[in-house]
């Protein structure tokens, strides 16, 4: 059975994309056919780490111009993973982003339908894991991703703003859509790696990842799970992967 994860957060800059990319590599390395889809259509980031090898973007798919498989680039050789690792890129062209911002509710409604159909296409392709990297806060694209997923991973940091918004997202979005959730405390300034709370707002806390400059500096050009599997960050990602699998 295919597991679909949406990586979301109430605020920007909490580390969603790093966690999404590393988690995707972790799943694929463990032999799970995985697909990572960049749904941060307003601030695409997957293309800064990988090179798209297909003519079509996820934007084209959501507009009904192609099928999901037309957007997929397989990077399993590059990442040396045991199973397939497909990426679907969001178009970084500013014209495309401007165009997206002007889309109306009707387009967003049909984009959700497209996303659910795309998920079905990947399920039929026998993929084990689908990961949606989303834009922060309550945007159509991110709530569409949440609606199309089975489980939401909330990437959280310690700022007050993030804390109060996360609680609202859980009660006002994720729970209403009946989604399983897990919190990842990222960039934590506590001096220990142990999980501080087992549960917050009724949701399990899956990991506490300490704040390390290295994750930001090296993470710009490396997927740490791939280049440095013994790194504390990589180990945290692997333990998150195991916890997600046990929650299925």
């Amino acid at each position, binding site marked *: 059975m295919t597991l679909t994860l949406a990586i979301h957060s109430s605020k920007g800059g909490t580390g969603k994309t790093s966690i999404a990319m590393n988690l995707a590599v972790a799943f694929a390395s463990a032999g799970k056919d995985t697909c990572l889809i960049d749904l941060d259509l307003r601030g695409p980031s997957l293309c800064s780490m990988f090179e798209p090898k297909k003519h079509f973007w996820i934007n084209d798919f959501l507009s009904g111009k192609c099928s999901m498989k037309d957007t997929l680039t397989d990077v399993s050789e590059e990442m040396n993973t045991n199973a397939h690792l497909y990426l679907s890129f969001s178009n970084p062209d500013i014209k495309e982003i401007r165009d997206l911002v002007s889309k109306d509710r009707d387009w967003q409604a049909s984009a959700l*339908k497209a996303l659910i159909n795309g998920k079905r296409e990947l399920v039929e392709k026998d993929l084990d894991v689908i990961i949606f990297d989303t834009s922060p806060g309550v945007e159509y694209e991110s709530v569409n991703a949440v*609606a199309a997923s089975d489980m939401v991973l909330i990437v959280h940091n310690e700022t007050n703003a993030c804390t109060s918004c996360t609680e609202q997202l859980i009660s006002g979005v994720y729970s209403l859509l009946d989604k399983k959730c897990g919190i990842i405390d990222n960039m934590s300034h506590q001096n220990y790696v142990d999980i501080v709370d087992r549960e917050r707002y009724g949701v399990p806390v899956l990991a506490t990842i300490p704040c390390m400059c290295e994750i930001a500096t090296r993470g710009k050009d490396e997927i740490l799970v791939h280049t440095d599997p013994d790194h504390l960050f990589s180990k945290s990602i692997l333990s998150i992967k195991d916890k997600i699998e046990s929650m299925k």
Partner: protein
Amino acid sequence: MDSELLEQIVTNLKEINSKLDKLIVQVENRDEQISEKERIMAESLDVITLLSLPDHLRTTATTLFEIGPATADEISKITNKERAVESNYLNQLVRMNHVRKYREGRKVYFRINDSLKKK
């Protein structure tokens, strides 16, 4: 004599059946024409609207999103509610213009309203 009568009844029934089928098609076409006018006002169901629906309707609408066009019976098997209950919810969603109802043969199907598709 009896078998002749029976044959006659069967023939008549078949005739009635085919007339009914034609009538259904006519009614469908008429509905289509009326709804074509309403279509401009029809609202497609987006995810933010979905969140603001009452719990029972949201579950029905979410299920319809996930499995695509379906009958009330198919929806009720997933939501574990009575078929009649789901049928009621689906018809409420139809009246709210979020869902469209159509017939295929003798079955009534529902699908999420998507006004963009027909534009």
